[in-house]
């Protein structure tokens, strides 16, 4: 067609890196603005992990055989609770995607020229903000409970990267589930059904050595186990990784990349 003078057919730099970054940040910023408008949301989400540390941690510490090699159970538990709270916060992202679809807001994103992957990554990035704010609460709480935390800058950076990867991983996973089930009711049902096995079939709250063989096998393919393993090594002053930090980061990175590709293909289905 012959372009009319007001709408030149000049190539628009959609594909350039800065343009892509602008679009990713636009999506993430909108979420952050909403959090700023409603900060109580962050506070209320912090209650659950605190209860886990204080109640569950205190009781279970008296159960024989639960603490890791040499350390106390609360030391063992703290990284698990951090991973858990990141999981529980991120798993809500699918629900909010369905919510946005029902409200009509999702259409505004979908009809824009932003690549779908930019939308998915923007949402994942927003979930990392929540994940990181949970981490701060848990660090403070763990320190008060006497957990021997490591404040080495390199370790803090490592923990930050792990939380970012895990938030992105579980929020994108949740988004994919949302694209499949499409309604709030079904998501609520299946969300519970998925979160519990991810959490319990992992090394988060008890050492794999007390698990039966089949559960240990599941925990070995569960990304949460790799997150927890990395957190145990980096969060605690006397922590050590069982799988190796390279494997922990590698597994999370590969799974995030795979899920992002999948979510990019599925996200547009939500508005159809």
């Amino acid at each position: 067609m012959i372009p009319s003078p007001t709408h030149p057919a000049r190539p628009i730099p959609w594909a350039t890196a800065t343009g892509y970054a602008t679009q990713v940040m636009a999506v993430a910023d909108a979420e952050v603005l909403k959090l700023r408008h409603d900060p109580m949301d962050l506070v209320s989400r912090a209650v659950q992990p605190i209860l886990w540390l204080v109640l569950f941690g205190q009781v279970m510490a008296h159960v024989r055989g639960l603490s890791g090699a040499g350390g106390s159970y609360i030391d063992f538990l703290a990284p698990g609770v951090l991973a858990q709270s990141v999981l529980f916060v991120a798993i809500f992202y699918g629900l909010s995607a369905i919510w946005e679809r029902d409200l009509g807001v999702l259409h505004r994103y979908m009809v824009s020229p932003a690549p779908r992957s930019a939308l998915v990554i923007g949402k994942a990035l927003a979930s990392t903000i929540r994940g990181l704010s949970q981490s701060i609460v848990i660090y403070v709480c763990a320190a008060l409970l006497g957990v021997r935390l490591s404040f080495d800058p390199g370790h803090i950076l490592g923990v930050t990267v792990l939380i970012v990867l895990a938030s992105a991983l579980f929020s994108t996973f949740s988004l994919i589930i949302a694209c499949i089930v499409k309604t709030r009711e079904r998501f609520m049902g299946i969300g519970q059904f998925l979160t519990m096995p991810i959490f319990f079939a992992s090394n988060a709250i008890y050492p794999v050595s007390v698990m039966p063989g089949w559960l240990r096998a599941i925990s070995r393919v569960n990304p949460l186990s790799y997150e927890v393993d990395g957190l145990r090594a980096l969060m605690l002053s006397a922590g050590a990784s069982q799988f190796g930090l390279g494997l922990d980061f590698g597994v999370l990175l590969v799974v995030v990349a795979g899920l992002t590709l999948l979510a990019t293909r599925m996200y547009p289905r939500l508005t159809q």
Partner: protein
Amino acid sequence: MRKVNGRCIGLEVVSRLPRALKMSSKQGAPVAAVVEVHDLTRRFGALTAVDGVSFDIAPRETFALIGPNGAGKSTVMKMLTTMLPPTSGRATVAGYDVVRQPQDVRARIGYVPQQLSADGELTGYENMLLSARLYLIPAAERRARIAEALAMMDLTEAKDRRVQTYSGGMARRLEIAQSTLHRPAVLFMDEPTVGLDPSGRRAVWRHVQTLRDQIGAAVVFTTHYMDEVEEVCDRLALIHRGRLAAIGTPGDLRAREGSEATLDDVFTDLTETASRTGDGRK
């Protein structure tokens, strides 16, 4: 280059094309349509929601899609805005294929969906900023362009309030501002005035017309209000049970029914005739 639509009942579309379509460009070539729809079909399971629809829309034309509830208007619009893939048929918008080049299409259209799409939890300004960044409006121009668009829609005073607190008419105007910040070649609006009071409706149309003239966009909209069709559009298409029942200027369609006829009569007559002859979806 323009095809007569086989499904138009007795309307000589070609002779009644708006002047814009018959005009030639300086090079002597015909001005291409900004929206071309050819045999577009969409099925949902056993239901054929849109059934072999074809029409063209000229640049700067204001084009209405009308038809009873469930006729397939929104489905047509979703396909043209790349929100829904067609089952078969072809459509181009601003010269780009909606299936093969969806991102190019999206960069050149604005879409105001039937359901409200501004984010109620954000302020008017924040909503505008979100759109400006998604459409890659250069950072240096963002503030000025947003301020200008908000002023044009009479929303400057409300810009720092959350959209939750807006009236229906204000929210619609905000959405229109969000959808046109990037100066699209075609603005699609699905029932933009539904649920608005008469003054709200008038305000929306007044703003849309000013905007249309300023950015030179074609406007494609659906509505159930025949007075809007009469006042606002250059041409309209009547869709019934997924098919194109008639297309032309409001005058054309009225003339068909006799000298005293209103668009309401045309609407009633065409939708009821088609129902009686069983000419509908299976």
